[in-house]
């Protein structure tokens, strides 16, 4: 248990700022025709690369065979890349055109994300022990209000972040899912504590969910039993970075492979 040493696991692919890797990886791993894999992605001219819509790489399995033909996700991405290449947009003039078309929207997204990242209102909901540390994070000693993550909203309709603090039991899983679905987009989820990351010391029990990522998407994991307030603050700052780096592209959220029966 990482006591006192805030160590936060963040999905690196979510932090990929311009989506170049995530645009290439599935293509490379999916045995697509060489034309697609040979797609030039210049790192310098960011206008073109920013323009590529990055699909959700957080929750999409890497194997495109999971999807039938015509579904969204990786296949659509591959089709889109083929179209782009066929349409010859990548020749210089058209690239300039598209860049001119998209320079404003991209920057608008950037500004919006800066605003969102600096006003992340958590939902006032604690499950167990970690809730005490979460409250302590908001109090005088380590004041999370400095980053604009205060007040804790009582109603999910006005919250941005769901900090799941504490052991999640199978009886509580359904209400928690309802809370998560009541939060309007854009929304983020922070798993605080070992119990929410993996089940922690109650993993063996008959009534606990072994990690909340079995029932809902998670953006930032903050291990520790419980994590110190500094750890939670570090995780929230990671979340800020993640919010800014996504540049207005939020992943289509899919939950992990194993969903307990009855949920």
């Amino acid at each position, binding site marked *: 248990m990482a006591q*006192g040493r805030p160590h936060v696991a963040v999905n690196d692919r979510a932090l990929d700022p311009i989506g170049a890797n995530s645009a290439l990886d599935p293509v490379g791993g999916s045995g697509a025709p060489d034309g697609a894999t040979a797609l030039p992605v210049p790192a310098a001219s960011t206008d073109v690369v920013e323009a590529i819509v990055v699909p959700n790489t957080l929750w999409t399995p890497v194997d495109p065979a999971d999807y039938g033909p015509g579904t969204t996700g990786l296949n659509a991405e591959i089709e889109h890349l083929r179209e782009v290449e066929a349409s010859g947009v990548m020749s210089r003039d058209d690239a300039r055109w598209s860049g001119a078309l998209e320079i404003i929207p991209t920057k608008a997204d950037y500004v919006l994300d800066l605003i969102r990242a600096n006003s992340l209102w958590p939902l006032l909901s604690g499950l167990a*022990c970690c809730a005490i540390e979460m409250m302590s994070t908001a109090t005088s000693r380590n004041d999370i209000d400095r980053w604009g993550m205060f007040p804790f909203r009582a109603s999910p309709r006005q919250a941005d972040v769901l900090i799941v603090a504490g052991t999640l039991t199978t009886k509580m899983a359904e209400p928690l899912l309802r809370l998560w679905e009541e939060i309007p987009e854009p929304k983020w989820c922070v798993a605080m504590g070992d119990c929410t990351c993996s089940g922690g010391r109650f993993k063996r029990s008959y009534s606990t969910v072994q990690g909340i990522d079995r029932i809902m998407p998670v953006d930032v994991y903050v291990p520790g039993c419980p994590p110190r307030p500094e750890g939670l603050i570090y995780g929230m700052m990671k979340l800020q970075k993640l919010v800014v780096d996504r540049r207005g592209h939020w992943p289509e959220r899919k939950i992990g492979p194993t969903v307990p029966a009855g949920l």
Partner: protein
Amino acid sequence: MTTDARTPNPHAALDDPSVLIEDVVRESIVEAVPIGRTERQAEFYTLRDGEMLLNMGPQHPSTHGVLRVVLKIDGERVVDIDPVIGYLHRGVEKLCENADYHQAICYTDPLEYVSSLFCEWAPVMAFEKLLDVEVPRRAEYIRVLSTELNRVASHALTMGWFALDLGGLTPVLYSFIERDEIMEMLTALTGQKLLFNYMRIGGVNGDLNHEFMSRLGDWMSRAARHIESNQGLLNENEILVRRARGLGILDPETALRMAVTGPNLRASGVPFDVRRAHPYSVFPELDFDIPTRQEGDCLARYLLRIDEIKQSLRIIDRCLHQLPDGPVMARLPRLVRPRPGRAFAAVEGPRGMYAAYVISDGTDQPFRMRIHDPSFVHLQLVGLMTPGNLVADTMAIMASLDPVMGGVDK
């Protein structure tokens, strides 16, 4: 508690001890209770004219943790209330039965997460009874010292939450300052924050260290003054006193019938404190008082905790003066196999009598381990006191009873 004709009297079963058990059984059976619903459910979930069910929780600002409370309200007045718990049931007892005696201590830690040391102490005392272990006196003193510190932190949080549920923003942050300081010094002592896994069978994990002692001395020099000033914000506040006085009165007879212990019982005038009523550890050697109050309302329960904080500071002071030298751990094998038997041990936690009942079958794992938590018992009082009051009073009553859901749901 009102005896309004429309509100079902919660005492119905306990008012008359002379009722024959057969009659109770027969009426509870023969009465046409719908299949799958108990008598109580059938009574609660049938709405009269003008009544409305209001569901609070499992996520609600005023239910500390994941308590779900179904209120049957008539306008702003609460007619009946049905607490639904179990949203934090982690199967601690089963896990303890599948772990050996040392690992079980770690499972009992997160039960009452604002006063973890008591959750460790009771099982450890039960194990020591099973093993006939003699605990070194220095270890006992260190246990008393650390647990009393934990009691102060817990009571500080309780008072802050009480003010928060009455709508005050600032006091809870002031009490968190004291609580954080105590948590830091206990972290220095135990090496783990909030869930200190400190008690061991036959002693404690480590001896007092320098950082703990320096932090403790620094804090003791100003603790009483700080807590006094923090309470000055509330105790002289007309709004809070007017709201809390005469609210949720609990008379001693009912309290004993409801198996209430701890501050909630002492606020009703019954001076029952396990530290004196059934002495354990070195409490017979320490001099302190058992504060009681006669009113039995929310204000009394709130003020009593301030008195207990003062007594705890006294105990800490006495411990620091009487602290003997010597080892802090008894000699024990790594893998303990007590001979078959049963042991019951109880400590006086911040919320009441916190007990553990262990059955050993001679193996290295407890055959049955039962944790008795006071919050679990006290939460029943909400259904007893709330009817007849307003919705806003529900929060005041719940906060004054101070349940911790981790302990309630185990």
